């Protein structure tokens, strides 16, 4: 049984209340940090732990904290990004629903470390129940003296607010989130300046994902060194994975980073294999915006070694044969799923969610969606496939925020790995409406010699 840090007590009845959470050792980290550690020591501890941002980019959290500008007389803010809207990712919602105090405890410790007197949790507008849960939990924490003036007699003041968003995917991008929090249209800002220099209301700001902040609690409790022992290489600690798709047991799992992907999919401790006795055709390993991989490349690296659930191993091989950890939204597709339809579905999402600020993303996402719709519904042309690759290439890297890349990667990777399925859709328009292309060669082991000559 692997170690659980965040979801250890998830099944304890009433863990969402302050009393039960405290019985299970909750708010120890607040007491330890505020009474025995200086803010810089907390930052040092997080740095030592090697914790990497859990929102998608995987930037080391401790580094991010140490980059925060600290000019005299200017307020600093900590903003928690709970605008979880990536298709396939639902770990933050799960965490906030069941153990809201883990997030609040993390927020208090992190705010203390950064010297923020006011902190915000920006929650996606659709998550109204979670907003109410968090507000109730904040009220509990406040009446117990963990929030407000002079917390635990340490002289440190903190106010924590929950801000509902309007439900836009783009507001999960940190600068768009800050714009939205300020009450403006949620358009990403042009960087630099980065939020660490000029963020919310022009003040230095740190924006962290829910899971990153919650992970600070075990780091402070057990120490950064202890946390670093879990995991593999530069991917330390545990990670929440939202598993969905054609799995026997989809859901949120806490894994130790470095777990083989094969074990994650097929072991009974985790997803329990592919549902209905089908075979795995493809996976999206980290939420809709990361490249999609066929089954063979999901389980094994190009050189035949098993692929692990870690930042490095998932991205092994670059975009040619790898993918990314992303936010941990693991979607599995069985042999009956149509990759063209799935790609169209993702493209439709990005078309709908593009903010419309910069031209390649605004126009390109809609274009890709229309072309994919045409292919899926039997009106495609062979030239459309190359057109899609070209459009994706022209969006990627040319936009203000990463949404353009996120829209381009699924399309580009689907065509890279499943080109014959796209071609089949164009060649057999009627047949493709009735039947599926099936698993083809996507689960067959990759021919090894081909790869070794490349190296």
């Amino acid at each position, binding site marked *: 049984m692997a170690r659980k840090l965040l979801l250890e007590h998830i099944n304890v009845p009433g863990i969402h209340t302050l009393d039960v959470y405290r019985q299970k050792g909750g708010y120890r980290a607040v007491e330890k940090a505020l009474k025995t550690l200086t803010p810089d020591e907390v930052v040092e501890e997080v740095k030592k732990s090697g914790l990497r941002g859990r929102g998608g980019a995987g930037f080391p959290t401790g580094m991010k904290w140490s980059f925060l500008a600290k000019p005299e007389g200017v307020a600093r803010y900590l903003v928690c990004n709970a605008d979880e809207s990536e298709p396939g990712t639902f770990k933050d919602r799960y965490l906030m629903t069941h153990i809201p105090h883990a997030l609040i405890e993390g927020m208090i410790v992190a705010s203390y470390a950064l010297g923020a007197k006011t902190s915000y949790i920006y929650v996606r507008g659709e998550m109204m129940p979670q907003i109410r849960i968090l507000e109730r939990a904040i009220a509990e924490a406040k009446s117990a003296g963990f929030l407000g003036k002079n917390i635990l007699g340490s002289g440190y003041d903190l106010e924590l607010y929950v801000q509902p968003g309007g439900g*836009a995917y*783009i507001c999960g991008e940190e600068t768009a989130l800050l714009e939205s929090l300020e009450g403006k*249209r949620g358009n990403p800002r*042009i960087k630099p300046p980065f939020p660490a220099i000029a963020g919310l209301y022009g003040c230095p700001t740190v924006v962290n994902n829910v899971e990153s902040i919650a992970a600070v609690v075990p780091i402070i409790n057990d120490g950064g060194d202890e946390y670093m022992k879990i995991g593999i290489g530069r991917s330390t600690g545990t990670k929440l994975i939202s598993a969905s798709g054609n799995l026997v047991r989809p859901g949120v799992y806490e894994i130790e980073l470095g777990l083989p992907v094969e074990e994650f999919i097929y072991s009974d401790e985790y997803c329990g294999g592919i549902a209905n006795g089908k075979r795995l055709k493809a996976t999206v390993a980290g939420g809709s915006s990361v490249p999609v991989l066929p089954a063979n490349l999901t389980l094994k690296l190009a050189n035949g070694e098993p692929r692990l659930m870690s930042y490095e191993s998932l991205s092994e091989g670059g975009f040619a044969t790898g993918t990314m950890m992303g936010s941990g939204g693991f979607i599995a597709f069985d042999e009956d799923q149509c990759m063209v339809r799935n790609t169209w579905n993702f493209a439709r999402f990005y*078309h*709908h*969610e*593009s*903010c*419309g*600020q*910069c*031209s*390649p993303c*605004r*126009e*390109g*996402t*809609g*274009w890709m969606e*229309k072309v994919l719709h045409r292919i899926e519904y039997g009106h495609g042309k062979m030239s459309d496939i190359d*057109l899609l690759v070209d459009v994706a*290439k*022209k969006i990627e*890297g*040319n*936009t*203000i925020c990463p949404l353009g890349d996120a829209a381009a990667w699924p399309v580009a990777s689907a065509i890279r790995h499943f080109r014959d399925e796209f071609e089949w859709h164009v060649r057999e328009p009627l047949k493709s409406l009735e039947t599926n292309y099936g698993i083809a060669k996507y689960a067959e082991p990759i021919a090894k010699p081909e790869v070794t000559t490349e190296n």
Partner: protein
Amino acid sequence: MSEKVKVTIDGITVEVEPGTSILNAARQIGGDIVPPAMCYYSKLAGSGGKCRTCIVKVSKGSEKDPRPMPKLVASCRTTVMDGMEVQNITSPEVLEARSGVVEMLLINHPLDCPVCDQAGECDLQNLGYEHGLQKTRYEFERRTFERIDIGDKIQLHMNRCILCYRCVFTADQITNKRVHGILNRGDHSEISTYIQTAVDNDFSGNVIDVCPVGALTDKTFRFKNRVWFTKPIDAHRDCPTCSGKVTLWYKGEDVLRVTARKDIYGEVEEFICNTCRFDKKKTADWTIEHPTHISDASVIASNHYETMIPLPVIQEDLRLQQANKVELEKTAKF
């Protein structure tokens, strides 16, 4: 004065003030290496970064940190560092990406330049001419909107808009109240006044000048004439609200339109008020200065007074002078 920084753009080195953007450094050099800008407007704080036509490649970050930047950057919003090396037209990668951006800008833009009022002085038209494809690869219906009159003098045609946000910044920064903005999201976002309020402000007419395309047009000039048939003349008047320095656009004896004076990058020199722009359309209202200088590259110049100086080849050849006698006498009259 702080120390100047050195930046090399396409092999040409220039010294500029620290904090200058790559685009402005390139403008100090001038010529072909200046990246095109559809959304950046030097007079409007915060503009730029959106259209992505000005993207360039930074092949060397600075003297201290010579690593190249990983992605192409928007030159209008990237500040220069000492020793920075930038590639614009010398980089095929930049040109390809730029033509990609132009293609994106044009897929939903109507290709009806022959009936568009902006034709002849349209930034997008110039850009498309230089970087665009010969034929569109977009085979779907373009998005369309109804024309909206925002106030009695300005018409908005969203079909043509490229969402550069310039008019939003203009309304924010030079009028005392902004009543229009961007509604909706993604490729269905539009400039609008929400419940069709009239944009009514002494300086609201400037949104027409800053619009790089034909989305915002002057209703007092709409469909009156093609710009290349009109002759621009610089003029001024004593105006209590603005500087009163304008360009009058003549057709024969009539002033068809009044605009602010624009520099070679299409940016206005000084914003003018609505009275000057819409109400003063008689020569008697103005003190005429001289014909406006129009770049030879512009289609407007083809019909311009300034170009009527006989070409050097004619000046030297007696036979050619005889053949062009009538034309030359006309020039002499001016």
